[in-house]
């Protein structure tokens, strides 16, 4: 791993007046994986009928009081630890006050000045195999709002409160990303981390994870000055693009927004700080509200809740229970002998990494990775499946790769064997035995096959003596004769001997 904090090439936008750099920060809302909501016992399951998962607390009924869900706190701490962040043993829940029909209490319970998690870090992995450090500013817990439905009737709007009160982690980065690739890579890495931790399912389609992307542009060099003295004056005015819900859209939104800002500045205009929407159909961002229209949220500590005090020993227990995270796993895979790029691909999803590890047990790491990439993932991609859908267990694949390595079967038979167990099931070793797929290394059998081929093709024997390269034709014929079971190396050696061919032939 070669982490560097800011020295990777920034994405440059060529304007008419010169080159511009992009600066990106992100606020990611990640839904906490928990059975019940942040302050109530209502279920959090996705896909229920509207308003079927709403407690009196979630509906803001008079006299109802929030009670913190310890599981959600644990998940936030776990996530904080996974982000290598400072865990604040004392944090405070505040009320963020605003009126909206899908906000039943008239305020969202959030954390303002004293979040549960402070500064941390995430390394993002780029295509060239390098890693970049993105600083985490904070993580705090807050309630999600319900959902307003405006398309159900021409005259009325409806409200679904199933989401109301679900626990979210808002993860805020420092403005450390400098290209659309980095922005998408950050989100991908963050998703991998929370999935490894089991603290958020990361399903962006279901809204479990969504990003607000802050984009600004500055003249080349401005960012380095900002990193040197921390002053935001070196950066441009930012716009926040709300609720972007896929990696691809994040990249597209950044691209569009940065170009929009450069055009405005170069046209003599100034960037207004504002909140914008990304329209994925038109691939553009549009103004939502300006800074002047921003709400005054009147944050104050929620008097219904005591400050959240955590026990250091409890945090330590959680820390000890953390799984191996992508970066550590990647480093270990590289130490096995994989390239950084291959390792990054394999650790991106925990299931894939686990599958790989089981597959690679006792065999060459690189051979296992190649087998997984070429044979398994290739097939999955073709059928639009994921690693969870593989019908052949990692152990079965391990058996196949092991049999190739120890010469029991040939590489070609291995592919056929995978096809058999993929479509028909069965234990690879038993299939090899039952169908006689074992590689023939018995020189007697190979010699017999060679004799048969020679006998049938006397003319070719003369030709190969003149043109030793034709030996390959003989190998192919012998393989055919043995039903592909012969060890090609052994066939080659025996042919050379029989036909008196030179070694380099």
């Amino acid at each position, binding site marked *: 791993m070669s982490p560097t904090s800011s020295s990777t090439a920034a994405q440059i936008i060529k304007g008419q007046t010169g080159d511009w750099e992009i600066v990106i920060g992100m606020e990611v809302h990640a839904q906490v994986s928990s059975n019940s909501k942040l302050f109530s016992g209502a279920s959090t399951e996705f896909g229920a009928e509207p308003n079927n998962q709403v407690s*009196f607390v979630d*509906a*803001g*009924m*008079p*006299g*109802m*009081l*929030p*009670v*913190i869900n310890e599981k959600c706190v644990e998940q936030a701490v776990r996530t904080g630890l996974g982000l290598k962040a400072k865990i604040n043993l004392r944090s405070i829940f505040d*009320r963020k*006050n605003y*009126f909206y*029909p899908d906000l*039943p*209490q*008239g*305020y969202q319970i959030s954390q303002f000045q004293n979040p549960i998690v402070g500064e941390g870090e995430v390394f993002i992995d780029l295509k060239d195999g390098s890693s970049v450090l993105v600083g985490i500013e904070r993580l705090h817990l807050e309630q999600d709002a319900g959902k307003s439905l405006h398309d159900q009737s021409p005259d009325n*709007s409806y*409200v679904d409160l199933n989401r109301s009160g679900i626990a979210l982690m808002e993860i805020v980065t420092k403005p450390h990303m400098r290209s659309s690739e980095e922005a998408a890579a950050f989100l991908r890495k963050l998703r991998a981390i929370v999935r490894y931790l089991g603290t958020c399912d990361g399903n962006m389609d279901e809204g479990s994870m969504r990003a607000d992307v802050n984009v600004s542009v500055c003249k080349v060099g401005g960012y380095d000055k900002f990193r040197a003295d921390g002053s935001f004056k070196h950066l441009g005015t930012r716009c926040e693009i709300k609720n972007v819900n896929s990696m691809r859209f994040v990249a597209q939104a950044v691209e569009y927004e940065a170009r929009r800002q450069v055009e405005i500045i170069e046209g003599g205009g100034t960037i207004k700080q504002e909140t914008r929407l990304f329209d994925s159909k038109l691939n553009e961002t549009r103004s939502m509200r300006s800074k002047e229209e921003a709400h*005054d949220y*009147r*944050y*104050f500590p929620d*008097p*219904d*809740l*005591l400050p959240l005090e955590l026990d250091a020993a409890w945090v330590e227990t959680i820390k000890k229970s953390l799984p191996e995270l992508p970066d550590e796993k990647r480093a270990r895979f590289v130490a096995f002998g994989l390239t950084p790029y291959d390792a990054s691909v394999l650790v991106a999803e925990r299931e894939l990494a686990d599958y790989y590890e089981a597959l690679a047990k006792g065999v060459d790491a690189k051979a296992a990775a190649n087998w997984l990439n070429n044979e398994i993932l290739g097939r999955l991609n073709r059928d639009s499946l994921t690693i969870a859908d593989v019908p052949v267990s990692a152990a079965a694949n391990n058996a196949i790769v092991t049999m190739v390595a120890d010469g029991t079967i040939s590489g070609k038979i291995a592919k056929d064997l995978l096809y058999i167990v993929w479509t028909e099931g069965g234990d690879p070793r038993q299939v090899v035995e039952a169908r006689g797929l074992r590689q023939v290394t018995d020189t007697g059998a190979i010699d017999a096959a060679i004799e048969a081929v020679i006998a049938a093709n006397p003319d070719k024997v003369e030709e190969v003596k003149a043109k030793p390269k034709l030996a390959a034709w003989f190998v192919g014929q012998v393989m055919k004769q043995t039903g592909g079971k012969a060890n090609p190396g052994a066939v080659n050696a025996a042919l050379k001997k029989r036909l008196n061919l030179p070694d380099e032939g």
Partner: protein
Amino acid sequence: MTDFTLASARDALKAKKISSLELTTALVKAVEEARPLNAYVTETPEKALEMARASDTRLAKGEGGALEGLPLAIKDLFCTKGVRTTAGSNILGNYVPPYESTVTQNLWDAGAVMLGKTNMDEFAMGSSNETSAHGPVFNPWMAKNSNSKLVPGGSSGGSSAAVAANLCLAATGTDTGGSIRQPAAVTGTVGLKPTYGRCSRWGIVAFASSLDQAGPMTKTVRDAAILLKSMASIDPKDSTSVDIPVPDYEKLLEGGIKGLKVGIPKEYRMDGAPPEIAALWDKGAEWLKAQGAEIMEISLPHTKYALPTYYIVAPAEASSNLARYDGVRFGHRAKGVRDITSLYEKSRAEGFGLEVQRRILIGTYVLSAGYYDAYYARAQKLRTLIARDFTEVYKKCDVILTPATPGPAFAVGDKSDDPVAMYLNDVFTVTVNLAGLPGLAVPAGLTANGLPLGLQLIGKAFDEATILRAGLAIEQAAAFNHKPANWWRAA
């Protein structure tokens, strides 16, 4: 029949001298006859009689809880399952909660009988019960040689009037800045605001969450001890409920006050206070001294900041707590609006009374960007200092004795146009809420005009037992056994 106290009725029921049905029937009738007082906003006679019969069945079997068969009035701030709960406001309209507050559930579990819901200032904001959407409550007491109708205090004015007029054996109240103690004091009844966290707030319509606390309003100190025991609990549904066992307060009444150290805070001697108040206060100290207590002057230096601090903290919290009344899910919804903003504006303008609107505006203002530090943040600092004043003096004394109110009940309409004059009613009580301490108002005498006055005892956190014992000493010494003349039945 209606003059029973909780203790005497309990004993009579146990001795089978009366039945709960007889007692409840008498009180249901008294409640009906007292409608001119406007103490109740919802009467539940059928429910009361049904509960009374069930209690009689249990009592007949020698079963039953601590309050078995005892009829109570419930302030309309407590959510009662299946029974309309309005918080004295039009914005809740005919809201019927599908749940029961923890405090009232505790009471029903102890066998108590519900007579109905009592009137109150809207969202408990007021000191005279005049801000109620259901109209004012009249104090059962009238000054000598006067026909002018007086306020019963507030915000628990329906409860105080109901207890004073024998329209229940006892009632629940809530106290955010004095809303139990001040109405108790001006109606010649006993009111106890427990330590913050003693009674669950779950299911009580919130006014100011960090200050609100439910408590008993009773005819005697003993009754306050009995009722508190059943109201109080440790409630996992309220994060601010405190995990301290609830003692048997009635048992702890015994033992006298010999050696009790009673602090007299010099800052409570206000310029311009009526001489009758100061005289009563002195008399209270003498009574306690005569029973063996040690009287000492103490200082609570930040007292003068209490009222302004309270009128920042309470409205700030209220402005947020009342945001849920938006016309969207329950309660009043304005008609003829085309968009969501006008739905909010019109529903809230129509649903909230002027005092509530005033406090929402104040609260919104003090939390706004640019004003937060100057108001809310400073008020929180002062609140800490006010609480620290008490921590300091409790190193020297056990309880604090003060007047409960700056004067007796005033006439309806007298202060309703002057919010600051109204707010001053709470001058002796708000400090206790800001510090989260228990406070007890005990009737101690009558003015020259024949109106009741009360004294306040302030205790250490979770030491309700000591102020109840001191309160009993005052009650016995004062021998306050006056009752208002029944003028309302004729009315």
